């Protein structure tokens, strides 16, 4: 019998982008805990990717403080992804970071057969630039509006209203973390649960006002129990 008809087969790409606050207020325990938590989350992400071999998870990272830059610019297969520690200094130019992500998600930069991207925004403060402009750019992109957007607020000073606007779905609240263990737990959830949900090939309709119209996420994890005062950020 003849060979299978058609060209080369390939699994479907899934873009996963970390968007990380590296402003001065993240210095010390926060940025150390964040670096540790993301590094620890990568094996769990690799496990999720192995469970669904029909999705190719490609990871990138953007950092923002005084302006914003790619920390990992090249979409990198999750099985080859290595986390390089971030340092913290400067202000909170979140809007610029969202603009960079919007550019990456333009139609001409995205594979048409891709799975919904996953964007994870982590911040401990108030944006110091025009974040609404960056968010508007992101939402103006079809892949941006269809992305699964999750946010983690570190400490009490994070602007939950801004993070909620980024998520764009009232049913999904920002995750909150006020100590290193809690941050590790939330980063692990944010890096694996949305990834698993987005890599499912089920089709979706987009009925207005439908709470399950976007990729549905299960309930987030409960906070870590009581911690000592010196553990709190």
């Amino acid at each position: 019998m003849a060979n299978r008809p058609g060209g080369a087969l390939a699994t479907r790409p899934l873009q996963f982008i970390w968007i990380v606050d590296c402003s001065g207020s993240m210095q010390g325990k926060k940025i150390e805990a964040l670096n540790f938590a993301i590094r620890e989350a990568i094996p769990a992400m690799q496990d999720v990717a192995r469970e669904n071999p029909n999705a190719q998870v490609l990871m990138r990272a953007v950092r923002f403080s005084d302006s914003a830059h790619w920390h990992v610019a090249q979409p990198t297969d999750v099985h080859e992804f290595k986390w390089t520690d971030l340092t913290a200094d400067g202000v909170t130019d979140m809007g610029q970071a969202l603009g960079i992500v919007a550019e990456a998600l333009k139609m001409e930069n995205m594979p048409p057969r891709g799975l919904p991207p996953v964007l994870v925004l982590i911040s401990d403060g108030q944006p110091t630039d025009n974040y609404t402009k960056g968010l508007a750019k992101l939402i103006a992109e079809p892949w941006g509006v269809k992305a699964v957007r999750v946010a983690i607020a570190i400490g009490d000073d994070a602007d939950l209203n801004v993070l909620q606007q980024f998520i764009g779905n009232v049913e999904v609240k920002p995750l909150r973390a006020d100590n290193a263990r809690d941050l590790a737990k939330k980063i692990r959830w944010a890096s694996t649960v949305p990834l698993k949900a987005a890599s499912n090939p089920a089709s979706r309709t987009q009925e207005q006002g439908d709470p399950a119209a976007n990729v549905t996420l299960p309930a987030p994890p409960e906070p870590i129990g009581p911690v000592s005062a010196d553990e709190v950020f």
Partner: protein
Amino acid sequence: MPTAVVQPWWALSASVCGASHARTGLPNQDAVKVVQDGGGLPAILAVSDGHGSAKCFRSHVGSQLAVDAAVAALDDFATGASEIPPEQIQASAALLPGAIVRRWRAAVAEHHAANPIGESELAALEPAAAVSARQALDRGDPFLIYGATLVSALLGPTWLLCLQLGDGEILTVSRGAAEVMQPIAVDESLIANETTSLCERDAEQNFRLHFRMLGDSTPALLLLATDGYPNSFETPAGFRQVASDLLGILDQDGAESVAQALPGWLEESSRLGSGDDVSVAILYLPPAKEAP
């Protein structure tokens, strides 16, 4: 001088459970149906992709009802079309989306009435999906739960009619022509697994329709596929190559041989590609033979 004898048309179809569904224990949510009698025309083909999301938990039924509705509506149309002047067929075809949607909704309502959704079915859903399903049922709208796409075609003796709602693709290739054609262009707004659907209120308006008189361009192969098939290829060109490759294989090995191999090819495509359910319906005209 030898006389060329036109060979009968062959209709083939296959539908396989996606590799991802097999891993998670979900059923095949696609459906396929072909109607072609005695090797002649008209011939009708339809494939449908049940959405498979948690809130569309009866979409495997919805896809079967979709291909049934499309085939019935196109069969009626083909019967009536023999009495319509060719130049009026396209205008008449514009009424088909409404006819298909009405048939599908009636079939869904009937299935739902005969098989009411129990509390245990809703309780088993993810919370957000259960909210969606309950809201739909509260407003007397069971259609969301059965949501499915539709790709269909009717090949008449002198014309081709294609109707599509949502994702999926149609390919044609003519003998001797290098280029594989797509009668209905890919809708670039349907990305990230989002699709238009029979379950939506504006389903009729979202249908896309292609009609053309064939003249000398009768396709030797017409292929309809659910999106799990094109999504399994690295490039769109790699998927279009399926049509030209298939025509060559059919000419060389014959339709019966290809019908046997088809499910295996689709399973391989899903396993190494999208992981989604894959369904195809194919209409094939063998090359004419010289009369003895």
